[in-house]
């Protein structure tokens, strides 16, 4: 087999034992890798009904056929499990060297089940070459350490050729939106860090150098060179020059920048925290993931060191909490990285609590919109699950249920996952994407915002015509996340399915067509739904909080989305997907 090893490594952390489980070519061709392969393996594990924090619940690290190839942006892996935040499927993608080292262990995915007897490092030595290559080492000395400290200490202890994925304090404390960190990047959404923490695994240290062969190496090299050349062009200029943070002032001008827990779509202090302002007033360096030619990471100087800045962190720590002080936003973002917390869910949950205080539903008078001290204090409380942090560590949906009143109507979440920085009333194709997202409100699995920022729809009054377009972005994302290629290449791949088929043909030797890949994308989206149905999904979940359905944006009355319109869009989405609106879970 080309591009694959044809096996996954299944590790029981309770016993520190591993077995290689064969993966058939048929399964690999149907689900490809990454998010697709991960969900297929989870379904095989019959894990949909398990408590994701139970020892027997699996977590999958899935690689892809492209990992290790010369293709730009291909050094990525997917972390797939049931989410402790949503109780639905969760797949998060992250770069970079861990993917190459993991696949270098001679497998296409790693499944971890069980619970280590004490806080441990799971060491996978792919260069050793037999069963003894898997071992648990105590990680008690790293208890309470940040993700970055753990990674550095383990490299010093085990060797620089190990690649480390670790959790911070938040993962140890099972914060429901804890991340898994690697090389400063995070499998950010949905709480995979809590799943690993529940297994008593502080970190996975991995090394391996086993390569797969490519079916057509010369053609693949030429194709890779051409793709790299194209990736230097205007289509990726946004990411090179300002990064994702370039969205901030644009969204603010369009009234689509979520502010003060979605009470507004514009933020008066947006300019203060914009990348344009940060670039003008602070030192800046750029960084790339391994095997990437785009270099989207912009790291700005602050009083607490260099901070990687992404749009989602700026919005979540900034406008959403009403904080317009750049130093505070950078510090808060950095603190989330250290603790291993998803900035979007942290910001969403804190902003929600701030509004509850404002409404008199929560007696925590220090927690005010715009307060830098409150933001930083709340983040630390969440990481340690101290005081109010224990409630906020549960996410906004569970917090709302505990707070009561009508707070669930303003909890900024879908299926329990906090809404990213796209105001749904101002971007209504995205509103549909959020409502139907398998892992909840999600801008990575649905690119429906692309439709809103085009001449194909009226973004504030979308019709059923938008549904097909939203589905197209979801299918495309499913394939990109399974191949895996970075979505920032979207504008470079002008004929996506055809070019993806070309890539996969040269890697695997399969006579794969663009139609087959489109079918695979739809299959992967459906597999996520199958998992959710088994986990108890109902149609009532495919909606938005009441705030978005009964209140127009105060500063843009045209940005109004009625429940009837959203429900019609959702119904049409299900019809076009060919899904039964009231499925009966098997068994």
């Amino acid at each position: 087999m080309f591009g694959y090893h044809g096996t996954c490594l299944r590790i029981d952390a309770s016993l520190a034992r591993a077995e290689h489980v064969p993966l058939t070519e048929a399964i690999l061709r149907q689900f490809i890798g990454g998010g697709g392969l991960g969900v297929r393996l989870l379904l095989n594990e019959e894990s949909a009904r398990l408590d994701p924090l139970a020892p027997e619940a699996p977590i999958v690290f899935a690689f892809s056929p492209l990992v290790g190839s010369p293709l730009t942006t291909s050094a990525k892996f997917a972390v797939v499990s049931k989410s402790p935040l949503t109780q639905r499927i969760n797949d998060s993608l992250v770069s970079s060297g861990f993917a190459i080292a993991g696949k270098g262990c001679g497998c296409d995915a790693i499944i971890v089940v069980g619970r280590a007897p004490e806080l441990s490092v799971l060491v996978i030595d792919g260069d050793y070459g037999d069963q003894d290559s898997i071992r648990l080492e105590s990680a008690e000395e790293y208890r309470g350490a940040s993700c970055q400290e753990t990674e550095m200490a383990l490299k010093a202890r085990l060797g620089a050729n190990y690649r480390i994925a670790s959790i911070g304090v938040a993962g140890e404390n099972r914060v429901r939106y804890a991340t898994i960190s690697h090389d400063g990047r995070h499998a950010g959404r949905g709480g995979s860090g809590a799943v690993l923490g529940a297994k008593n695994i502080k970190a996975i240290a991995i090394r391996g150098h086993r390569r797969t062969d490519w079916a057509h190496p010369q053609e693949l090299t030429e194709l890779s060179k051409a793709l790299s050349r194209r990736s230097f062009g205007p289509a990726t200029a946004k990411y090179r020059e300002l990064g994702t943070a370039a969205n901030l002032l644009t969204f603010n001008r369009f009234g689509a920048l979520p502010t003060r827990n979605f009470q507004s779509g514009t933020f008066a202090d947006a300019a203060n925290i914009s990348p344009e302002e940060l670039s003008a007033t602070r030192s800046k360096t750029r960084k790339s993931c391994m095997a990437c030619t785009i270099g989207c990471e912009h790291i700005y100087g602050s009083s607490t060191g260099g901070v990687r800045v992404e749009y989602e962190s700026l919005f979540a720590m900034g406008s959403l909490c009403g904080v317009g002080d750049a130093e505070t936003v950078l510090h808060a973002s950095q603190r989330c990285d250290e603790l291993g917390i998803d900035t979007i869910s942290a910001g969403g949950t804190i902003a929600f609590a701030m509004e509850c205080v404002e409404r008199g539903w929560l007696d925590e008078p220090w927690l005010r919109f715009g307060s830098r001290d409150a933001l930083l204090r709340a983040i630390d409380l969440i990481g340690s699950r101290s005081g109010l942090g224990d409630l906020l560590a549960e996410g906004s949906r569970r917090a709302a249920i505990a707070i009561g009143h009508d707070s669930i109507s303003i909890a900024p979440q879908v299926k329990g996952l906090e809404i990213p920085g796209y105001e749904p009333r101002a971007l209504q194709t995205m509103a549909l994407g959020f409502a139907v997202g398998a892992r909840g409100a999600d801008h990575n699995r649905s690119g429906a915002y692309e439709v809103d920022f085009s001449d194909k729809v009226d973004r504030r009054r979308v019709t059923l015509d938008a549904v097909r377009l939203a589905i197209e972005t979801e299918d495309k994302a499913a394939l990109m996340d399974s191949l895996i290629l970075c979505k920032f290449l979207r504008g470079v791949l002008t004929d996506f399915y055809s070019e993806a088929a070309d890539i996969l043909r040269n890697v695997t030797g399969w006579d794969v067509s663009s139609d087959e890949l489109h079918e695979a994308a739809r299959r992967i989206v459906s597999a996520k739904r199958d998992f959710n149905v088994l986990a108890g999904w109902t149609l009532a979940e495919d909606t938005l909080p009441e705030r978005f359905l009964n209140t127009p944006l105060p500063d843009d009355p045209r940005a109004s989305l009625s429940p009837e319109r959203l429900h019609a869009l959702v119904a049409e989405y299900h019809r076009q997907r060919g899904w039964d609106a009231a499925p009966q879970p098997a068994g």
Partner: protein
Amino acid sequence: MRVEFFGVSRQRAGISQLEIEAETLGQVLEALAHRIPSLREFIEVDRLHPSLTASLNGDSFVSDPQTRLSKNDCVFILSADAGG
């Protein structure tokens, strides 16, 4: 009429906005290419490169060079990719 720049176009232009006299979108883009050479990479005669897009007053997105504009209109030039 006013042109406002966002993201890469603002970085390249070095300004956030400017006033232009034009009757169509195509004329706006031709004028921009002439006045701001650093934007030429993104303007193909009277059309934007696909990596950028234009919005009319934030209400609609326009690409046809013949799109008529009035003096009170505002054209936003922004990245076509809103990924974050």
